[in-house]
């Protein structure tokens, strides 16, 4: 009977040795010691040294993160930048560690996503000699001067896809699905609703959020998005715009399912990147357009600023708007070709200031 325990002890001893060996092996690697949950790639060049930390989902999400990755790729080729990329674990609780890791070796550290807010500020204060930038994170009174905030005028881009929806709807009913009910996503809603109303005053816009903060599941629950979109399509809505990250996949699939079942045509509008190009072929005919958020331009821009010693951080955010091509709409598929004049006119009016797009929903 005691032998069992002895065996167990032996096992334990073996396991301990094995883990020590593993740690030692990991230390022997001279490149950035990154745990198995993260992936690091390093490319060399004489330009600025960039450390990119992705949002949950990481490189390959074909949306937000990949757009940021495209920005650093451009920096690599045009500015000969050295780039190191890491992705947080699925729970996202090692963001601060990854930022500190990048801050050790790189000159400019970019956190992709508003969830980095508190962590990046902490790390920026601790390492004042390095430059930091956060995508989608707004500044506050205590923001350090070595931290730049890259913001987007999502409401302006959403206004344009709203115009497209208002012109294209046949039932005069359109829908909006937000991932999580936070002020960032409300910007999309406000712009979209204003855009729809500007061309089609009779149109109804139904607005629904998948979850309420602090529950951020809404950005990654296609099944829930599908329940909402199905109810919306059933109620006669024929175009739905989503700002729900990964949940949008459920909307796109449902647009196809509903169209086929009811032998009618309903549309979905994508967000962040040109989602016509990211879905599989059978779903492409259902994506009317996408609201483009040029995270790549912003990321490239801030790296260029560091390279030219133009870096501006602190309490003033850098806003990427329609005027600077920081947001826009996509024309892939050619479904909005017939209304492109109206879209361009609305775009010019926003840039001129003739149209003021609200950035928060009217109650």
């Amino acid at each position: 009977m005691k032998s069992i325990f002895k065996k167990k002890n032996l096992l334990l001893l073996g396991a301990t040795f094995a883990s020590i060996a593993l740690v030692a092996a990991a230390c022997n690697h001279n490149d950035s010691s990154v745990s198995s949950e993260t992936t690091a790639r390093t490319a060399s060049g004489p330009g600025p040294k960039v450390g990119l930390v992705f949002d949950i989902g990481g490189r390959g999400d074909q949306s937000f993160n990949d757009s940021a990755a495209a920005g650093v790729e451009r920096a690599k080729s045009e500015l000969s930048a050295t780039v190191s990329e890491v992705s947080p674990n699925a729970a996202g609780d090692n963001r601060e560690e990854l930022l500190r890791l990048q801050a050790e070796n790189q000159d400019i550290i970019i956190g992709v996503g508003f969830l980095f807010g508190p962590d990046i500020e902490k790390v920026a204060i601790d390492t004042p000699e390095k430059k930091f930038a956060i995508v989608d994170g707004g500044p506050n009174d205590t923001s350090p001067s070595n931290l730049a905030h890259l913001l987007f005028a999502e409401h302006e881009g959403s206004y344009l896809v709203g115009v497209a929806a208002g012109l294209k709807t046949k039932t005069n009913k359109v829908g909006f699905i937000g991932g999580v009910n936070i002020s960032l996503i409300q910007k999309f809603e406000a712009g979209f609703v204003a855009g729809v109303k500007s061309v089609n005053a009779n149109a109804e816009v139904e607005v629904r959020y998948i979850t309420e903060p602090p529950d951020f599941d809404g950005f990654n629950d296609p099944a829930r998005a599908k329940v909402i979109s199905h109810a919306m399509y059933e109620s006669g809505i024929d175009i739905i715009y989503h700002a729900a990250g990964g949940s949008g996949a459920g909307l796109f699939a449902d647009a196809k399912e509903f169209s086929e079942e009811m032998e009618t045509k309903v549309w979905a509008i994508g967000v962040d990147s040109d989602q016509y190009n990211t879905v599989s072929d059978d779903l492409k005919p259902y994506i009317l357009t996408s609201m483009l958020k040029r995270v790549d331009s912003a990321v490239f821009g801030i790296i260029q600023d560091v390279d030219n010693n133009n870096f501006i951080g602190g309490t003033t955010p850098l806003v990427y708007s329609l005027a600077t091509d920081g947001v826009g709409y996509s024309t892939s598929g050619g479904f909005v070709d017939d209304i492109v004049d109206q879209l361009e006119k609305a775009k010019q009016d926003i840039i001129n200031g003739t149209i003021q797009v609200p950035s928060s929903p009217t109650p």
Partner: protein
Amino acid sequence: MTTTEPEKTNNPIDAPTNGSEHSGQARLPSVSILDATRASFSNLFKKHRWLLWIFLSIAGVFLLTITEFFAVPETMDLTSSGTWRVALAYSVPIMMAGLGGLFAERAGVVNIGLEGMMILGTWFGAWGSNTDLFITQLPDWFNGPWSGLFFGVIGGGLGGLLHALATVTFGIDHIVSGVAINLMAFGTTRYLSSKTFATKPLEGGGLTKSPSLDKFQELDIPLLSGILESIEKLKWFFISDFARILHGLTTKLSWATVLAYAFVPFVVWLLWRTSFGLRLRSCGEHPVAADSLGVNVYKYKYYAVTISGMCAGFAGAFLAIHLTAGAGYSEGQTNGRGFIGLATLIFGNWKPVGTALGAVLFGFADVVQLRDVNAIHALLLLVSILLFAFTLIALIRYASTGFSNRKYLIQVIGTLIGAATIFVWYMTTKTVPTGFPQAIPHMSVLAVLIFGATRLRAPAAVGMQYRRGHEN
């Protein structure tokens, strides 16, 4: 080892209390009539269990109908066929996770790792639906939703096997192993995606999502849906509502949904009517005694935990293949459904039918709140009416004891206060607080734990480490 009360506590029908049996003389005639009706109903339901279910479902639909009738602001979604059709499918992952938990816990192993096994199910489900993208040599039938479901079940089963290895063979604490499996599943699927889905960007794959897939075939029950539709159109109070719900439950059913619900009676049969089930459950109640009677406890625990993982794998594959309308795997899409499944297990008192009912309840609540915000506000009225009905039941019982049993008086007052509070809340508001709907599963489990604590009975040896030859 705790001693447990005999089976009577688990009976959903209340056995006549001592009070009502020998206080007959002192009672008013009307009370004794009430009592007699109650007793005859009790007896009828005891003889024919299916009558009880029919009675309960009619009562439930009636409750929904009157709630909808009185609800301000108005809602039509509580009895709409769309809601029920979606809810039926939406509940499947929660239910299968719950049944997975049931298998493991009935054999004495706590399975916190259900969430992780579900994640494996989502990944393998998506991979198995599109094997031709990755391995060209496999025959054609390893493609499509059924192949996805098959691989999802296998993937979840592998997770279950690992949990069994850790907890049964190595004797690791069940919670620790379960948490480890949840963490590991995230990492494993990310790694596997980088080797498979991420290499197919043109098909819509990526590091965190799979290419899109085909869905299960759907079936309609032909004659029935026509009849039900015509009853719906009559717009008769209650009758049409009933028809609407039935219509929702019987049209556009996917075969996988049918399979999942058919699994519930199968589990009842397997665990309570076969010697396999008896042996499996004995491992969860008193493994030492089971061993002394020649049951190979290790073997049965292995079976149970592996089946548990397979159920969770089914849940995950169903979520990825069917509930997303074929959008497929996306990282983190399980969003705690495995844990909600564990909650239904407690809600259902470690019984298959109760677990399934809990899953449908939670799934229904979630679907309703996603479809119509007003409907969840109307549910407050429903809860208030329900509590008031309990007040009446308690009052009848109190009366049948000749107004002497203080226990019933407390019940009457308690439920009445609850009903009144919720009713006032309902009347003074137009919406429920944000986040309230998502808390419904957690709150209802808490309510069950509070009010049903004396009736709940977990397997006696659940969570304990069993070593052959060692008395625990």
